[in-house]
C-alpha cells in the first residue's frame, strides 16, 4: 500500500469530471489536494473522511507547509487518538473553492489565467460531491465515518443526506443544518471588507502580487470574534494594555485584545486567499439542508442507515446548542440512531479545536461502537 502514490501526505489528484454544480454550471477538471493517514484495509471498510472548517485544510495532522505549525486537529487524529490512525484510514481533502491545492478561484481556467471571480459559486453539497469523486478514485465505497466540526460538520451532514448508503456514521461537532441570518450577516461583513480593499479589483489581483490583505485581515478579525466567547476574551485579555503602562490617546493597538486580533488578521493573509474566503463563506451561507429536502429537515435523513453523533458547546454562540438540537429533532423524527451532548467548554465555537477532553472521550466511544 505504501508505494501506492494515491496515499500519503501532500497528495493531489486531477479528476476529469465534469462535476455538475448546484448553481447550474460544472467544473472540469476537478483538482483535489488531500492527505491520507493510516492504512486502508483489504475490504476498504476502515476509511474515515475528515472534513475541515472554513479556513482549515488537508493538513489535519501534519505540519502546515506555510506556517510550519502542527495540523489543526492533532489532538483528535493520530496513533492512539480518537480518530486512531493505527486502526483507521483517514482521508482529509481540501474543499473545492479553497486555496490549498484544490480547484478554487486561484486555479487556472482553460485560458491559462486564474479563474478569479469566474470560478463558479459552489455549495457545501458540491464540496461533498467532489469528495465522493475522490473516494471513488481511492477505491473507497462506504465510509466508516464522516467527521467534521463547524463547516466540516455541515459536510458530514450533507454526506449522510446525499450518499446515505456510503456513510455508516457521522460525527457533527459545533455545527448547524442551516446558516442563520446572524451567520450570514457576519460573513457579509467579511466579504464587504475584502471587496472594499482597493487591491481586490473585482477579484483580479493574482498577476501583480498586490493582494487585498487589509480587507482579508479585517474579515478574519471580525470572524475570529465569533469563534470565541465573551468569557474567553475577558479571561484572556480583559482590558489589559499591550506593552505599555497607560493609554496613548491614539489609535494604536493599546489593548491586548486589539493587538491579538490584528495579529490574527495579519497572519491569516499569509496563508489564505481572499477570493477563496468569498467563495467558501458564500457556500456556507447558501447551506440549508432542509431547503434541499422540501423544507423538512427530517426528510434529509429518512431511510438513512447512518448513525449520528452531535456535539455542541455551551459557550458557542455562532452555532449554538439550539442548532444541534434542531438536527437531533429531525433525526429522531426520521428514526435515525443519534447521540447528542452539549459539552461545557470556555472557548466558544473554537472549542471543537481546543483542549476539551470530554469531546475526545465522546468521539472515541462513538467511533469504537462501530460503523456497522
Amino acid at each position: 500500500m505504501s508505494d501506492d502514490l494515491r496515499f500519503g501526505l501532500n497528495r493531489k489528484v486531477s479528476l476529469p469530471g465534469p462535476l455538475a454544480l448546484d448553481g447550474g454550471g460544472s467544473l472540469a477538471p476537478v483538482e483535489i489536494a488531500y492527505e491520507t493517514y493510516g492504512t486502508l484495509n483489504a475490504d476498504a471498510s476502515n476509511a474515515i473522511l475528515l472534513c475541515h472548517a472554513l479556513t482549515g485544510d488537508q493538513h489535519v495532522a501534519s505540519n502546515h507547509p506555510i506556517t510550519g505549525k502542527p495540523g489543526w486537529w492533532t489532538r483528535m487524529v493520530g496513533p492512539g487518538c480518537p480518530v486512531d490512525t493505527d486502526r483507521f484510514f483517514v482521508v482529509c481533502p481540501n474543499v473545492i473553492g479553497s486555496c490549498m491545492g484544490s480547484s478554487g478561484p486561484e486555479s487556472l481556467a482553460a485560458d491559462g489565467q486564474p479563474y478569479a471571480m469566474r470560478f463558479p459559486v459552489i455549495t457545501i453539497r458540491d464540496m461533498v460531491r467532489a469528495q465522493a469523486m475522490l473516494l471513488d478514485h481511492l477505491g473507497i465505497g462506504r465510509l466508516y465515518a464522516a467527521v467534521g466540526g463547524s463547516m466540516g460538520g455541515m459536510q458530514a451532514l450533507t454526506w449522510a443526506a446525499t450518499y446515505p448508503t456510503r456513510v455508516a456514521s457521522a460525527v457533527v461537532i459545533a455545527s448547524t443544518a442551516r446558516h442563520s441570518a446572524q451567520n450570514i450577516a457576519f460573513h457579509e461583513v467579511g466579504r464587504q471588507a475584502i471587496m472594499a480593499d482597493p487591491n481586490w479589483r473585482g477579484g483580479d489581483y493574482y498577476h501583480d502580487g498586490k493582494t487585498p490583505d487589509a480587507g482579508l485581515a479585517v474579515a478574519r478579525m471580525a470572524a475570529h470574534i465569533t469563534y470565541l466567547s465573551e468569557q474567553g476574551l475577558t479571561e484572556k485579555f480583559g482590558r489589559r494594555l499591550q506593552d505599555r503602562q497607560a493609554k496613548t490617546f491614539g489609535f494604536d493597538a493599546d489593548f491586548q485584545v486589539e493587538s491579538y486580533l490584528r495579529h490574527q488578521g495579519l497572519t491569516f493573509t499569509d496563508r489564505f486567499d481572499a477570493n477563496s474566503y468569498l467563495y467558501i463563506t458564500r457556500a456556507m451561507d447558501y447551506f440549508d439542508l432542509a431547503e434541499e429536502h422540501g423544507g423538512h429537515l427530517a426528510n434529509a435523513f429518512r431511510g438513512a442507515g447512518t448513525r449520528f453523533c452531535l456535539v455542541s458547546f455551551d459557550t458557542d454562540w455562532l452555532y449554538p446548542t439550539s442548532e444541534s438540537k434542531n438536527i437531533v429533532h429531525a433525526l429522531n423524527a426520521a428514526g435515525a440512531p443519534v447521540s447528542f451532548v452539549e459539552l461545557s467548554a470556555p472557548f466558544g465555537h473554537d472549542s471543537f479545536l481546543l483542549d476539551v477532553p470530554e469531546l475526545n472521550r465522546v468521539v472515541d466511544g462513538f467511533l469504537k461502537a462501530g460503523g456497522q
Partner: protein
Amino acid sequence: MTLLRPDLAIIAREVKAGARALDVGCGDGALLAALRDEKQVDARGMELNRDNVAACVARGLSVIQGNADTDLSDYPDASFDYAILSQTLQTTARPDLVLDQLLRIGRQAFVSFPNFAQWRIRWALMFGGTMPITKQLPDRWYDTPNIHHVTIDDFRSFIAERGVRIDGQWFLRGEKLISAGAANLRAQHAVFLLSR
C-alpha cells in the same frame, strides 16, 4: 445480566429480544447497555445530565441530552416497542403529560418509581414528623430531585382514570421481588408495564 439495579433487572428481563426501546432518564446507560448486549435491542436513551450523556456516548450508546418534560414530543407515534421511565416519573414537572408521551411513543411503557407509602416512610413521617430520609429516598426535602412523590395506590388510580391498561406489575423490597398483596404498604419500589 451484570449488576443492574433491581427495577432495571426486571425491565431487562421482560423486554423482548430484538425490540426497539427508548430509556427516558437513562442515567449512565446501564440498562441500555444490558439491553443492547444481551437482548440485541435497538436501545436509545435520553438523559438530562451532561456528564451521564457523555459517559453513555463514550460507551457507544445512542443517547441524547434532553428533558423528559419537554423533549419527548420530538419522537413520532409508536416509534418504539417500549418507552422506559425508571425512577424518573417523580422528578418530572408534569408526570401526567410525560406518561401521555410515553404511551404515544412506545407501544408499551415501563414505569418504575419509589413507593412513598411504604411503611418505613409512613412511620418516619408519622412519628418523626419530618420528611422521611430512607435508603431509597436519601435526599432532604430541599435538595431532592423528587418533586412529585407518588404511592402505588396513587399510581393505580392515576392509571385507571386515564384508561391505561396494566400489562404487568412487579414490586420490590430491597432487591427482593414480593407479592402484590398490600404492596402499597410493603413495597419500596414498583415497576409497571402499561399500554393504551
